[in-house]
């Protein structure tokens, strides 16, 4: 029998899980990643991973996890897959536990669980405050084991440029670039799984890593792979502002009892500790007594914006609020939150065990992503699969805290076997594809590089990127107005025109990071427009998408998935129904009981 | 997996043997040597008596070769091999442990050269019958005296730091606190051995026997 071959692009949690599943099926895998997979962005996830194991006698169940996820996502998520994911979550925790993840333990030696945003149950397993790092390493180790056995071949330090599609529109492999030698090369495969993560760089500064550009998604989009719900961008309520990055301050800080507040008096400049309790405004606890500091992220973010911009209560007039842990014993903090508290201490030189932290919302996660079917992570292009943050499933209009890790592992876990099944059922594999299609794609990509290298313009890629980030952060995050979105789209088109006059300032052919960044930037500019146009068209407020001019959820007109298509070089928005077959939509309110 | 026949790696064994030989027998011999030589602090006759006793043990040549010369030769030569493979960076990273690392190499080399000369002068030139008089004559030469002082201090600290290294490298002190204590112990041993060694030199040079009152 013909031995199929699978390529996986991206080595974060989803990509590694898919790799393991394919290798386990006995099918050879080529794993491509820009950075060594152990340095992927999943490493940044802090708080934990959700699974309704009900170990605390609270009566939690996978159905409640499912309901919380759908409700938290404001009913935009396709329910059948979310239900499957929540049912699979306890098994995923068991698997990770068997892989040796150093989860925190109870005195009995069982896994400990803590509470996270958007739920009333302790259902988040955690390993200190670096759960993503621990999970990524566990999967990285398993992949390394398969690599040592010769089942996996890693291409670290390679970037994805494009898919190789045959004349029937079927994916037959990929075209990649070695970031050292800058060589452009094609790799045949029967199926390709994309696990290329988030899009933070589109917003300039975010909580995402440098490689989270969305470039692969955008490249695929321009080859006919649909992109769904791009307008749903999660802004995390608590991040540490910085010029190079907005460093996340995990929800677990609130899960462990952290309280968010501002002084009641505007412009109060007294030291935080000297302000008596009566003069502190614990606005989340006052406005949302049931969930308190653990309301979902979109709600907390908007509350902080309201306090800072409308009520003018930002700390000393700045864009910041307090996240206070000082009432919690130092020893507890060190045991459960040390990793994130160290980040604060290191980058600001202030000990958060002694002084309340100053935080502000930051772009954090994209709920939207590559369109995949409601079954097995297949995209609309045969042979192309997607999983992890880069797909659009599981989180609807807003993701619950600690649901991303589980969705990555679940999505990657089903994408792997699905790709294997598809590849095995192919009548003719990539080996019998016309060699001309590979050469055609390689030449096209090499020509794009040559053009950029030779181009003699006046624009700097970093400058264009920063301007794009400013436009997106200002107009396409927390609060959206149609006139601003139109303005943003205009600016994005202007930036795309300026992009054509870019000057690389590095024309060498060895490890040219500027060339790679510029290619990514070109793709980001397209993705930015997909998000902006999606937001512009959605005249309602749902989950993370909030328009003051349309403050309510509008199920009659917008209980539907935005599905962007690339038609003749233009972005075209289409819509399709959401799977609501299990839980009928109901109003989403966190100020009263559900 | 089938049970494989276990064969420890050769370079590992050589390296471990180097570490062990520094304590036993070389370190142990150093302690013994200081102990028996310190009899000079009592009296000349006690020293000569002790020397004669050691010079007249049965199978002397074998005992010397197997317990002293070969181990020192191995420890020294393999030590130089190790030294050649390391690259001190104490100027960039002037941390205590790094100083000790650098010091261990310097003292080791000095001690090795010194021991070579010492054995030649006191064991071979005297045909294995060295007496107080031989030592006294040697030490009349100020260069010999200075070299001996340097050699004694180098050997002492090499042994002291070696104890610290040994305890860490064999995992007998694992926690940070235990390793810190082992470091202090090592420095203390270095100081104590140096002190006793220098006193012995002074004793030979000045004909000074502070514990002579024991036998008076």
């Amino acid at each position, binding site marked *: 029998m013909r031995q199929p071959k699978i390529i996986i692009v991206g080595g974060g949690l989803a990509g590694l899980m898919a790799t393991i599943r394919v290798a386990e099926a006995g099918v050879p895998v080529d794993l491509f990643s820009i950075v060594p997979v152990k340095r992927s962005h999943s490493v*940044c996830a802090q708080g934990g991973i959700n699974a309704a194991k009900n170990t605390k006698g609270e009566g939690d169940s996978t159905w409640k996890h499912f309901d919380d996820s759908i409700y938290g996502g404001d009913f935009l998520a396709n329910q059948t897959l979310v239900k499957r994911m929540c049912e699979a979550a306890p098994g995923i925790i*068991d698997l990770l536990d068997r892989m040796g993840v150093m989860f925190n333990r109870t005195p009995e030696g069982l896994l400990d669980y803590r509470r996270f945003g958007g739920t009333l149950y302790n259902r988040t397993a955690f*390993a200190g405050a670096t759960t993503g*790092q621990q999970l990524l390493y566990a999967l990285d180790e398993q992949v390394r084991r398969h690599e040592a056995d010769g089942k996996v071949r890693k291409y670290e330090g390679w970037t994805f440029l494009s898919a190789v599609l045959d004349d029937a529109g079927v994916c037959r492999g990929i075209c990649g670039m070695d970031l050292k030698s800058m060589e452009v090369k094609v790799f045949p495969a029967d199926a390709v799984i994309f696990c290329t993560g988030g899009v933070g760089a589109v917003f300039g500064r975010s909580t995402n890593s440098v490689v989270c550009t969305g470039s692969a998604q955008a490249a695929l989009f321009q080859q006919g792979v649909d992109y769904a719900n791009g307008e749903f961008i999660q802004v995390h309520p608590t991040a540490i502002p910085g010029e190079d990055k907005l460093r996340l301050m995990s929800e677990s800080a609130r899960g462990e009892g952290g309280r968010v507040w501002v002084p009641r008096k505007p412009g109060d400049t007294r030291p935080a500790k000297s302000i008596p309790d009566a003069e502190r405004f614990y606005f989340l606890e006052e406005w949302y007594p049931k969930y308190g500091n653990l309301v979902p992220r979109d709600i907390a973010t908007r509350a902080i914006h309201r306090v800072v911009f409308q009520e003018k209560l930002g700390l000393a007039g700045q864009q910041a609020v307090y996240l206070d842990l000082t009432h919690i014993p130092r020893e507890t903090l060190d045991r459960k939150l040390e990793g994130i508290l160290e980040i604060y201490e290191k980058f600001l030189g202030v000990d958060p065990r002694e002084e309340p932290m100053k935080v502000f919302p930051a772009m954090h996660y994209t709920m939207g992503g590559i369109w995949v079917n409601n079954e097995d992570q297949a995209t609309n292009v045969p042979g192309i699969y997607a999983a992890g943050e880069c797909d659009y499933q599981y989180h609807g209009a807003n993701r619950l805290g600690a649901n991303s890790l589980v969705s990555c592992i679940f999505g990657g876990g089903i994408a792997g076997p699905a790709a294997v099944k598809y590849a095995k059922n192919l009548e003719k594999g990539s080996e019998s594809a016309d060699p001309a299609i590979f050469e055609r794609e390689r030449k096209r990509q090499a020509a794009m590089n040559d053009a950029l290298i030779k181009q003699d313009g006046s624009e700097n890629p970093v400058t264009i990127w920063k301007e794009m980030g400013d436009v997106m952060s200002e107009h396409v995050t927390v609060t959206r107005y149609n006139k601003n979105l139109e303005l943003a789209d205009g600016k994005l088109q202007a930036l795309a025109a300026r992009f054509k006059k870019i000057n690389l300032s590095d024309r060498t052919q060895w490890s040219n990071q500027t060339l790679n960044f510029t290619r990514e930037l070109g793709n980001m500019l397209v993705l930015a427009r997909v998000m902006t146009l999606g937001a512009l068209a959605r005249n309602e407020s749902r989950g993370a998408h909030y328009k003051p001019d349309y403050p309510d959820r509008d199920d009659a007109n917008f209980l539907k998935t935005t599905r962007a298509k690339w038609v003749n070089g233009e972005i075209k928005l289409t819509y399709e129904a959401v799977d609501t077959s299990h839980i009928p939509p109901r109003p989403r309110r966190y100020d009263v009981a559900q | 997996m089938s049970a494989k026949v276990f064969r420890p790696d050769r370079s*590992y064994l050589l390296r471990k043997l180097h570490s062990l030989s520094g304590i036993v027998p070389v370190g142990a011999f150093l302690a013994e040597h200081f102990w028996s030589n310190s009899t000079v602090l009592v009296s000349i006759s006690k020293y000569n008596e002790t020397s004669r006793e050691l010079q007249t043990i049965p199978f002397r040549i074998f005992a010397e070769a197997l317990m002293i010369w070969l181990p020192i030769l191995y420890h020294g030569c393999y030590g130089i091999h190790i030294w050649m493979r390391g690259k001190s960076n104490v100027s960039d990273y002037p941390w205590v442990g790094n100083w000790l690392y650098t010091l261990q190499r310097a003292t080791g080399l000095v001690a090795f050269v010194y021991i070579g000369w010492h054995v030649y002068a006191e064991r071979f030139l005297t045909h294995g019958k060295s007496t107080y008089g031989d030592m006294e004559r040697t030490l009349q030469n100020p260069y010999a005296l200075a070299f001996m002082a340097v050699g004694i201090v180098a050997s002492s600290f090499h042994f002291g730091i070696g104890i610290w290294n040994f305890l*860490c490298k064999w995992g007998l002190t694992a926690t940070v606190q235990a390793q810190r204590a082992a470091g202090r112990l090592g420095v203390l041993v270095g100081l104590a051995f140096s002190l006793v060694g220098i006193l012995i030199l002074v004793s030979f040079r000045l004909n000074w026997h502070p514990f002579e009152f024991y036998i008076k």
Partner: protein
Amino acid sequence: MADKKKVIVRVKRQAGPKQEARWEEFALDWRPSMNVIIALRDIAENPLTRDGQKTTPVSYDSNCLEEICGSCAMVINGKARMACSALIDDLEQPIRIEPLSKFPVVRDLAVDRQFMFESLKRVHAWVPIDGTYDLGEGPRVSPETQEKGYPLSNCITCGSCLEVCPQVNEKNPFIGAAIISQVRLFNMHPTGAMHARERLEALMGPGGIADCANAQNCVQACPKGIPLTESIAEVNRQVWKQALFGWLLG
């Protein structure tokens, strides 16, 4: 503009693995809470040296910018450290930035740390599970073991411990503290412990644990504060016991 506070940065440049290294000096505009990454981005945005010469943006590895991915280790003012957490205001000027010296340079500040990943393979740094299908819960682990193991699993493979180790150099391919510490971690896990022997045997080979000479620089340089010297001592004990009793008793 002229009286704006400047940051003077000297970067060791190298166009490729075999090219000569040279220094370039840059004068950048100072801003509050600036770090070395921001400085390198400033250079990318305006690639002009201090004396106005046109140059190329500096190549370097970076990703998370919060000291958890391990990418951006470099030698800053003579010390191995992570660029993202190296705040400009804490550094003496002119700030000297060099690539790690114990790994092959790819270009400028970017180096190839594949040696470390290969070493992880060599020591079988994983818990060998039967498969990803549902086999129930993992073994119970005491909170005490978790509290010991968790710090070890924080290792970001940045290479700082190899960079500062006098025993790691072109003549001596010592595996380094990070990998030895991983062996301790996996030998600690109930399932991992079943396969401790293969890891210990791997550490006996050339460049293995015996090459550690106890300079203890690793623990000083580790950006994650991992108790590396404890790990080395602990694994040393496991290895010689394996060597001795494995040979004596089988």
